[in-house]
């Protein structure tokens, strides 16, 4: 548990004033150096040196009315949440370069290690199964080769990439658009727990702040800020992931995209990025070279052991990809009869080579 110093208390107070953005806070801190100093000043006097809006002034007045925030800080720390000021040595160096760097970071688990390579894996929430599997694969390859990943812990691609990294044996960091003690989305509870244990959960939002839509673009700048490069797996033409990409380009980070077919709506965003000059990830085998990462010697790619397959089984297996296909499609493509097909499907299912992600649809296992 973190020690609550008097200094920290005032930092906490300052950063939880309603209506204050990180740029304004920075301005204030440049002017007065210490939050305690600001606390001791009269509200009107603060407004003299730095321009403050009506709302911000009201926020300061409100926050000074009582000392509830002290209690709040205690509760936060009791939950095992760490607070890191931007002046602290533990503060991620990569974020210091941001103009609007978060003044106070809340975290569960670790903060990223500066020495390790850090990749951001981002993409659509409503992704295809293909996208999900690819994101997971990419995460695994990074994980096996000691690359850490950072993402938004959202549904779909984000979660897939983070699960993959954890499975590959590396650390992954989730940057949230709400307070760190809120698990959003709720269905990723398991991922949240794993991340807190094996990596970290990071947020700039103070205790109790709910996942408002306006928070997400803000957290995206932290995702790109924490990373050395950004990988976009699937994105629609108008996608939140592209906001992350914009931040990354602003911050001078490399951007890589996974290409897709022209007609796939979920690949439009990625393809456009590639057209605009983003790096292309065309092969999982050469992923690391493409991203300029040294391959770890012991990070050998695990190949599926050769399993003896009958002729018809081979036929079906080679026809299947990550994208689920239904029986009617498979019948046409393999020219097997319905009865034969069901038998082959079951055999492959029992050999754990394919799975049924949705009723009646079959796909290769990742």
């Amino acid at each position: 548990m973190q020690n609550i110093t008097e200094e920290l208390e005032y930092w906490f107070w300052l950063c939880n004033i309603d209506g204050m953005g990180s740029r304004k806070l920075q301005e204030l801190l440049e002017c007065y150096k210490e939050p305690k100093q600001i606390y001791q000043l009269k509200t009107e006097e603060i407004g003299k040196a730095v321009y403050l809006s009506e709302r911000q002034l009201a926020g300061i007045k409100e926050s000074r009315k009582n000392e509830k925030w002290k209690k709040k800080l205690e509760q936060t720390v009791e939950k095992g949440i760490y607070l890191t000021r931007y002046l602290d040595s533990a503060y991620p160096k990569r974020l210091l370069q941001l103009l609007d760097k978060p003044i106070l970071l809340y975290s569960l688990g670790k903060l990223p290690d500066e020495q390790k390579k850090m990749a951001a894996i981002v993409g659509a929430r409503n992704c295809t199964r293909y996208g999900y599997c690819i994101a997971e694969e990419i995460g695994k390859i990074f994980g096996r080769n000691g690359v850490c990943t950072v993402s938004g812990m959202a549904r779909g691609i984000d979660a897939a990439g983070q699960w993959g990294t954890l499975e590959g044996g590396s650390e992954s960091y989730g940057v949230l658009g709400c307070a760190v003690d809120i698990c959003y989305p709720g269905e990723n509870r398991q991922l949240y727990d794993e991340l807190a244990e094996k990596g970290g959960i990071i947020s700039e939002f103070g205790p109790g702040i709910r996942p408002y839509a306006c928070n997400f673009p803000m957290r995206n700048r932290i995702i790109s800020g924490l990373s050395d490069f950004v990988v976009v797996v699937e994105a629609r033409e108008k996608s939140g992931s592209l906001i992350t990409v914009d931040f990354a380009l602003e911050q001078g980070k490399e951007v890589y995209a996974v290409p897709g077919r022209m007609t796939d709506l979920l690949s439009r965003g990625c393809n456009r990025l590639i057209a605009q000059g983003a790096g292309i990830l065309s092969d999982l085998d050469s992923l690391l070279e493409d991203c300029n990462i040294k391959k770890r010697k012991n990070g050998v790619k695990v190949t599926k052991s050769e399993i003896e397959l009958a002729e018809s089984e081979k036929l079906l297996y080679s026809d299947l990809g990550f994208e689920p296909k239904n029986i009617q499609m498979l019948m046409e493509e393999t020219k097997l009869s319905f009865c034969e097909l069901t038998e082959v499907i079951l055999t492959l299912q029992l050999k754990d080579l394919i799975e049924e992600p949705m009723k009646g649809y079959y796909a290769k296992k990742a």
Partner: protein
Amino acid sequence: MFCRVHSGAIHGIEGIQIEVEVDLSDGLPSLNMVGMLSAEIKESSERVRTALKNSKFTIPPKRITINLSPANIRKQGTLYDLPIAVGILTSMGYIKKENLEQVFIVGELSLDGKVNPIKGVLPLVYAARQAEISCCIVPKKNAKEGAAVDQIRVIGVNSLLEVLTVLKNPEAFQGEEGVCFDGEKMQSVSEEVDFSEVSGQEALKRAAQIAAAGMHNLLMMGAPGSGKTMIARRIPTILPPMTWEESIELTKIYSVAGLLSDKNPLVVKRPFRAPHHTISASSLAGGGTIPKPGEVSLSNYGVLFLDELPEFSKTVLEVLRQPMEDRKILVSRVHGSYEFPTNFMLVAAMNCCGCGYYPDRNRCNCKETQVARYLGRISRPLLDRIDICMEVSSIEYTDIRGQKKKKFSKGEDSKTMRERVMRAREVQRIRYQGEKINTNSELSASQIQCYCKIDTAGEVLLEQAFARLKLTARGYNRILKVARTIADLDGEEQITRRHLSEAICYRSTNIQEWRR
């Protein structure tokens, strides 16, 4: 002067005998009716009085008392007009009392003395036969329906005066000719749709055939416009023709519901009922102050098709549980409990999400949670009762142009499919002779042990599949039932690996497994 006329009432879908007692006595002129009567029966006094007057009879200024016995049964409907009129006439001496002893009378009167048709004639005539009455007088328009009952003469009448003529000497009149029953011929003539019109969708057609062969319930899931409704409409065409007993039982239900006409006095075609999803629970199950059969009973021996299954309200869907399990439904109301048969085959169709295109992410942008919520509207217990669950893909251009492109030969027609279904049904009928069941879908757990013999390869497969696919005991039984039907269709006594793997393919997985 007292007299008694035999008549009947409907209780559920069965008729019961009711005695109409009429007495003329001295006193202030009045017409009193007793015997737990509904409003339409009380009104009948006016109809009877006017009909008698218009048939040139004068009602004597006497005190007329009418009792419908047994008096503790609630009676409704307009079928007592005619027996009451006959009773009054008999009391007045126009008809000999002895002539009424072997006559059962039902019918509604119009003011000019014409006899109008009523509901439920078939079960009423059955009740008359049970009471060992030899002759029935029914409205002319219901005569064909009543004549379906053998060992009893059914005489159709058009007017009150005709009734009088008949009753002068009931023995002299010929009964109505019954409908000559030939289920197979009747059914094939009356079909307007055929499976050969469905191009492509071979997998689904196969599933439909299996469902028909074992009376398994079928759930079709797929994108809009993929032919789910089209397939469902054609399922009755591959079900075996109705037997005489089935036809009679169904006709009774339709008779009570008032859905028969004099052109179609018997239900000879397997019913196909497709209620809209705004249906209420009681119109599905059956209901009313005196319960009438609902859709589950009207689709008895046929197909109950529920399109857009998740759009049905939850309470309505849960109503289906008991009828699907017990093949009958007990509807209880103030005036008693009524049992209706519900031996239907459920065919349901649904999309996979609100927009219908999931999992095609190019077209569907529903959130995973939305998809889950949509699929979650179907409860687990209901899914547990559906043996075959089939995914339907949308039809592509090549499929529509199938015949020309030679990619698909013209689809099989209903006749060949039905022949196969009938063969499989015959196998089942012979196998289950000693049991109370007719089809594989009715097999109980202990019967499954007895009748579903699996070869060794199949055993191995099932054991593996059980662990890998996380089957439940209930799911396991359903797979065996469907495998039994597939084997019956192939004409094999033993269930093999091939049958099992196909059956496993049809299993309906639970919601969590439906999506990633």
